[in-house]
């Protein structure tokens, strides 16, 4: 049996210019330059200007950034976003991991269906989730108040969305994304070497000990990735407060996120320069989070 002869096209010919790799890379680079690099540079330039409507733009140097430092609403939005991020990461990820471990048990009946049920909320749009939770948390006609009233004579007019702004946002996000992160953890758990787990078991390690010394190190890379993904996602919080609080920051701006504030400044007040400055401030905070997360992760790996 003869082996196929190597094709000549894969053999570099000395002195001949190779266009193919560049041609294949070109669409990506062109799109990256037009839709990522140019807007990034443009927004950096815009953050040093004050704009007002279509025809007014003046350079203000670092004026927008110094204004940000004195802007109580910016700090409010930053604080809200950080609280939301912490709430999301600290509640959502352990819950996702627990769910993944529960659904990873090989003897669990209806495992596939349960996985689908847990994952299904991700398939629903954020806008729909916002509308659904506004119906749940509504005062007199809301499902939650109606249910509690039927059970215990609960105050039908209890204002959930006015009293618990941040918990409402976290719960809605939890409902939608816990299954999404669960899938990542599930994939990681399936790659945990069984022989290690069995060996630890034979050595007399308990469930917690095996989790800490076998499972956790094995899923650490995925965990790190999911944490970073959740932080970035949480910083992009916009649609939920927009829907739940009618495009405002909610009662006393307790639901004002950084992106919502950026939107208000850029598209409601018309100062795109200030909005760009908010965007860059957010990017700096995110980069800080990413670096911190890398450092913590590296220390964990070293330990």
């Amino acid at each position: 049996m003869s082996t196929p002869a190597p094709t000549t096209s894969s053999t570099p010919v000395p002195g001949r210019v190779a266009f193919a790799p560049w041609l294949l890379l070109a669409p990506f680079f062109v799109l990256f330059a037009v839709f990522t690099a140019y807007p990034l540079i443009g927004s950096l330039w815009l953050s040093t200007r004050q704009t007002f409507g279509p025809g007014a733009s003046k350079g203000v140097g670092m004026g927008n950034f110094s204004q940000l430092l004195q802007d109580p609403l910016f700090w409010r939005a930053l604080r809200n976003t950080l609280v939301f991020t912490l709430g999301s990461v600290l509640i959502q990820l352990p819950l996702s991991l627990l769910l993944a471990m529960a659904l990873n048990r090989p003897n669990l009946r209806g495992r596939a269906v349960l996985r689908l049920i847990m994952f299904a909320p991700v398939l629903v749009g954020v806008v729909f989730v916002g509308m659904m939770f506004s119906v749940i948390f509504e005062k007199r006609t809301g499902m939650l108040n109606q249910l509690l009233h039927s059970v215990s004579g609960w105050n039908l007019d209890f204002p959930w969305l006015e009293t618990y702004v941040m918990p409402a946002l976290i719960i809605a996000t939890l409902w939608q994304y816990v299954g999404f992160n669960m899938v990542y953890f599930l994939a990681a758990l399936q790659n945990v070497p069984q022989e290690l787990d069995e060996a630890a078991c034979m050595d007399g390690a308990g469930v917690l000990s095996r989790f800490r010394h076998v499972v956790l190190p094995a899923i650490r890379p995925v965990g790190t990735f999911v944490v970073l993904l959740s932080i970035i996602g949480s910083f992009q919080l916009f649609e939920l407060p927009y829907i739940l609080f009618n495009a405002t920051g909610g009662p006393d701006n307790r639901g004002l996120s950084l992106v919502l504030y950026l939107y208000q400044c850029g598209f409601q007040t018309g100062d795109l320069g200030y909005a760009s400055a908010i965007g860059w401030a957010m990017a700096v905070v995110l980069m800080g989070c990413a670096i911190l997360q890398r450092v913590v992760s590296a220390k964990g790996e070293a330990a």
Partner: protein
Amino acid sequence: MATPKDTSQHGTSTEGAPRWIGPIVMTGVAIASAVLAMAFPAESREGSRMWVAARLHHEIYVPAVEEWNQAHPLQVHMTLLGTQAVEQRMLSAFMARTPTAELVEVERRPAARAFAGPIDSVGFLDLTERLRADGLLETINGPSFTPWTSRGRIFGIPHDVHPVMLGYRADIVEAAGIDVSQIETWDDFARVLGPLMLKPDGTKRDDRFLLNMWDAGAHIDVMEVLTLQAGGGLVDERGVPTLDHPANARVLAHTMSWAFGPDRIAADAPYFTASGNKLLVDGFVLASFVPDWMCNIWRKEIPQLSGKVKLMPLPAWERGGRRTSVWGGTMLGISRDAKNPDELWEFAKHLYISPERARDLFVQGDIISPVRAFWTDPVYDQLDPYFCNQARGRLYVNLAGEVPQRYNSPFSALALLRMQACMTKLAAYARTSGDGTAERLLPEARRLLKEAQSDIMRHVKRNRFFVEETGLTFTDAGEVAR
């Protein structure tokens, strides 16, 4: 086995290609793509484009546009878009100076954003002289122009007046033998209808309140309605925020007292929601704020109220005071870059300033025309079975002349957000202070509004363009010299 030759030291890639070839190839691809894209320009139709955001308006305009297109060489192609889509496309086009629809029907807040910046950079055509030349400044109800006016120039033809009345449950009120004609002021309203309250503790499904008013949702718009009625408002004629206006403090204190005070009369039946509509049907609140356009929404979305509700003028803030206000509004603007401004102006008049369209607008949309001459049309005298055979049109027309001036500004949206924050804070104060009477809340309302005003004025002062364009001057204390 031979290892690959590292040629990086010699300025060529591993396959022998020079390093400079990459950027050259990519630039070539970019140019070729651009040429290809330009070789197939976007499909363009002869004539002018028009964007409309309200489905109802679109339905009403279809025959008028067809009629125009049959009689005139300039063809108008009308497109129905979402409100956000119109706003974003319009503002993006104005900012980037890219083509937009020649005619855009737009609401008050997006219009304010389009008016930002130097007056000669506004994306809409200045219609002031055309309106004056055609005598429309006198024909159209004056307050209908103010939302579309910036620095004395008018950028749109007004579509409406939108007076506001109270829609109330006549079946319940009349069954109790109460005559609403005794009600002249808000104090009368609470006193006369007070016996109909079912004392609330939030634990019964049959609670009943007198007024639909709260500190969140569309009630923020209602707050603006009430401040305008009382002589206050969010911005003055220059577009400068006026949150600390004494009338605003008075209204804020009273409304939050209605909702959270010891003599509570108000509750939340959220506007434009199914849950709010159900609460109206249940009689949870007796009266809601109803501008003319909302009659159409009620008719379509709450048919259960047919024959059970009536309209009455808003109670005034003092005896002999204003009995209405204004809520909502739309204009038709012509793009500054439109190729046929004269013909488009004629089309705009055909659409907005004709007795036939005015009649259609009322019959199909329940909206009364801003053209005063049309107010004598008998169509407004038709009895409306939905509203217990009241001559609904005539009731609104009778109040149309009383509609307050309502100014517009790029800071209107921000002022509204700050007003909302004040409402929430005062509501919390009323809940916790133990004495939420209007008198007790008034000093706190003043303090909160003053604080909000200083905050928003930081944004105004920072905006060099706005300060220069409006010629604002500031006192030594940093306040606007009024």
